[in-house]
């Protein structure tokens, strides 16, 4: 429980990496959006998901 309490505030970052990253990659594939800068879809998803998760963690909101 103590470990969970320490990890809990980082939940948005875990969510960004664990769920949003592959979701963005899947959306890019589904809509035929090419990944920029020679990156793959999942690399782009990881960048966006992690970044958004960090924004949510430190900014306190997703939207």
């Amino acid at each position, binding site marked *: 429980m103590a470990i969970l309490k320490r990890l809990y505030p980082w939940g948005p970052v*875990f969510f960004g990496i*664990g769920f949003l990253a592959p979701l963005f990659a899947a959306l890019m594939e589904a809509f035929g959006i090419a990944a920029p800068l020679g990156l793959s879809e999942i690399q782009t998803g990881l960048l966006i998901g992690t970044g958004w998760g960090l924004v949510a963690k430190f*900014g*306190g909101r997703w939207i």
Partner: protein
Amino acid sequence: MSTNEANASTGLDREAERRLAQQEMAIAKKYIGPFPVFMAVWCFTNLACWLALWPLVFTGTLPLWAGFIIATINVALCYLPSHEAQHSNYAAAGTRLRWLNELIGYVSTIPMVLPFKVARYTHMLHHTHTNDPVRDPDYEVIAPNWWQAVLKTIARMQPRFPNAYGRILGEHSADPMARRAGLEGAAQTLAYWAILTVLAWSGYALEAAALWWGPRILGVIYISLFLSWWPHHPMKEQGRYRNTRSFTFKFGNLLAFGMEDHIIHHLHPGMPLNRNKAAFLELRPLLEARGCRLEDHHP
């Protein structure tokens, strides 16, 4: 406002109050009691429908957009059968069918990921302290109108907004039931995130988003609006006969999930949802005599 204060405001003397209470109980007893088959069938049908969406969408039998719409309806519908279980309306503790009561409580809300013990613990506090700004776990939904209530629920989903149920459980951490609820809640929430992650990294991110993650957000907003905000708005009064209102929803009681008669639930929580309307119609003269909040209820 206490019952006595409510009576005083409606000019009821002690004898009239006693007579009203007897009449109220006599009517309520007619609707409390038989096993709520309808609510139990609702639970398992809704859950089976939501579970069936997964193979149907995975195999391409059902399009993703259709799965999303049905799953959203499933999430919105999943709370109320569990709500009956929270009040032990399927079977009281120590009775033969108690296992069924607890089973419904646990499985019904799987689509919305609301841990049963957390729901029961906080809901009992909601009944005890309805509209109390500090002690009512549902008070945070307070908003001046319905669309601001929707925005408030979205704001409550943001990381910076403290989880009201978590705060309440923390405040009651000396209570073993609260600690147990917290543990079960943490385990179920972690399991949800783990399943979403595994699905997403296994190539089913769109399916996980369309059948669970997205519908859960929309379903929770709908449930919060109709079960917490609408029946208690503006959340200014306390006391048995004034803390909940009766209202008429212009798109029908079905879309309001039967919450037009939520006042009956707060007066008699042992009465299953599907009997509230009939009970309300019979109890209405008594509620009017009590000065209950029926001002928004049209005939």
